[in-house]
């Protein structure tokens, strides 16, 4: 691994480039993905609103397709093309925009295979941004992945670092089921070691970030960093934490979570989304039902409060889970 560390967004770009090189049926559809490819000087000018697809249009001019701001039409077209032998990667700029196109995933892509008696294959991937922390307010900051995970037929993928982002996106594009790939915008500039060559990470395999005997912390996306920070602090007081990053929430790697809780007897789940009907409550529920006997304390959830994402910086900071809140939750399980 001779090369320098690369950014999360470049890892995503690299995964798409390699998949497009490997497989001619891979296409990219979305808003600004080429960046106004209509005129010579505009070609590849944007490459996505945050530049994640930059450089792909010149390599694959027929397969990186700018669309109108018509999420229903182009997400549906990505689904339709994928049901006809393509492997479309649709970019839904912000996951908050799913409200205008959800039917195409929720009632169409997710249900084709089951409704049609097992004969449909719809290998579509939808990439979309999540996450607060930029004063982007209530309609550009959400992390609504639990709504997608709630739908049988969809897979939900949530990377937390550049290495995982590349391997998981490659796996999502190569996967024959509809995948929704959530990219936390605060991670785009995170740097990490990423092999240049093609590789995949299996969907449904959690990453055990670190092992410790006292408490199991399950954290997603940006929350993994906060959990690591909290764990460092707690370690100084002799509290040793295991940190599990599920990486995909559908499928969920229950066995890794259960066997960790069986060892530690304590569970803290950290999620930037809400506790009500969310990933955190779901993990606590499953653990309580299946490894109740191992629990030494009530499972704790560290989530955003049940409010829209506020705009003002101080309110947003109060809204977001952080290392302090995680630390407090861990200490509570140790009482």
């Amino acid at each position: 691994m001779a090369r320098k560390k690369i950014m999360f967004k470049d890892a995503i770009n690299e995964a798409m480039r390699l998949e497009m090189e490997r497989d001619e049926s891979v296409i990219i559809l979305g808003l600004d993905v080429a960046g106004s490819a209509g005129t010579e000087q505009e070609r590849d000018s944007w490459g996505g609103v945050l530049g994640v697809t930059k450089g792909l249009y010149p390599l694959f001019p027929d397969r990186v397709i700018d669309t109108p701001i018509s999420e229903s039409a182009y997400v549906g077209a990505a689904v339709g093309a994928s049901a006809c032998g393509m492997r479309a990667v649709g970019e839904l700029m912000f996951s908050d925009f799913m409200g205008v196109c959800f039917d195409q995933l929720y009632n169409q892509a997710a249900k084709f295979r089951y409704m049609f008696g097992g004969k449909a294959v719809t290998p579509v991937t939808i990439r979309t941004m999540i996450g607060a922390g930029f004063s982007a307010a209530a309609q550009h900051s959400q992390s609504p992945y639990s709504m997608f995970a709630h739908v049988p037929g969809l897979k939900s993928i949530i990377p937390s670092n550049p290495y995982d982002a590349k391997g998981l996106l490659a796996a999502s594009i190569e996967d024959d089921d509809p995948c929704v790939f959530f990219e936390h915008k605060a991670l785009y500039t995170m740097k990490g070691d990423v092999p240049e060559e093609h590789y995949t990470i299996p969907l449904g395999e959690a990453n055990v970030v670190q092992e410790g005997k006292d408490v199991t912390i399950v954290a997603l996306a940006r929350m993994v960093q906060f959990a690591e920070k909290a764990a460092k602090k707690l370690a100084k007081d002799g509290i040793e934490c295991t940190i599990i990053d599920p990486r995909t929430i559908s499928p969920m790697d229950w066995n890794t979570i259960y066997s960790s809780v069986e060892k530690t007897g304590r569970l803290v789940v950290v999620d930037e989304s809400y506790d009500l009907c969310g990933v955190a409550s779901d993990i606590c529920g499953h653990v309580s039902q299946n490894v109740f006997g191992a629990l030494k304390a009530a499972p704790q959830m560290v989530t955003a409060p049940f409010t829209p994402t506020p705009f003002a910086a101080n309110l947003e900071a109060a809204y977001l889970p952080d290392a302090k809140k995680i630390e407090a939750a861990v200490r509570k399980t140790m009482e």
Partner: protein
Amino acid sequence: MKTQLSKEDLLKAYRKMREIREFEDRVHVEFAKGTLPGFVHLYSGEEAVAVGVCEHLNDKDRIASTHRGHGHCIAKGVELEGMMAEIYGKKTGTCGGKGGSMHIADLDKGMMGANGIVGAGPPLIAGASLASKLRKDGSVGVVFFGDGASNQGTNFESMNLAVTLDLPMIFVLENNGYAESTSPKYSAKVGSENIADRARGFGMPAVTVDGNDFFAVYEAAGEAIERARKGGGPTFIECKTMRYFGHFEGDAQTYRPKDEVKNARANNCPLKRFADAVTSAGLVEAADIEAVDKEVLAQVDAAVKAAETAPQPDLDALMNDVYVSY
């Protein structure tokens, strides 16, 4: 009348229309007995639209359909026995009994599914047409939708996308006069009698034809499909037609003028009009038409009997085929 179609082609088209009529009329009867699960939406009266379009298509061409989808399935070549068994919720159904009337699909035949969501089809066929365009295989995509769905945003967005990306796509609007129970008078005021005028505004050729006239539909569809196959982009075809049954089976149809259906059946039935035209032009013998009628009657009867006695799905089908792998 003038037509390029051979006697064989004419009888093939008539047979498809008769299959739809016989199938739907029989489902109407069986449903009234209370032996069919769920609910069904029947296509009787609109046969000339599905068949007039699909006679130009092959298995590589994709169509998307609506909740009123049986006619499109039959026109696209889906087997009657499997369809009937599917409507009965049986293991031998086209989708193994897991989709039912509103989700019959046969991807090998290019039939991407009836659909329970009004207006879901246009984006899907935009995608299918995009796949055709990228593969350069000369195939096309056709979306069927009603006057109700013509008001969905998905339809407007897809018209724009189809023009913008220059897709080999045909929008076939089946204007049967009722969005469930609401007339286009109240739901689609376009400053014109024709919803097709909207499509012209998106910059694609758009025509309105008599949807009960097989030959009018066939000609308009032929021109549109040929243009699309040659890279000439999308077309919109509005077919004015009428459904003979309610929005769903059991609909009392209190919103319809008295005798509307009776008069349509007597004076504007697409099958009768077709048969009269081809026999009086001496292209097909009346005896040939009668023979088709008899054969199709027997075929549908056999499909019902087979469906009635077919086994239910195995219980493990409940958990199967949610994913390819999970």
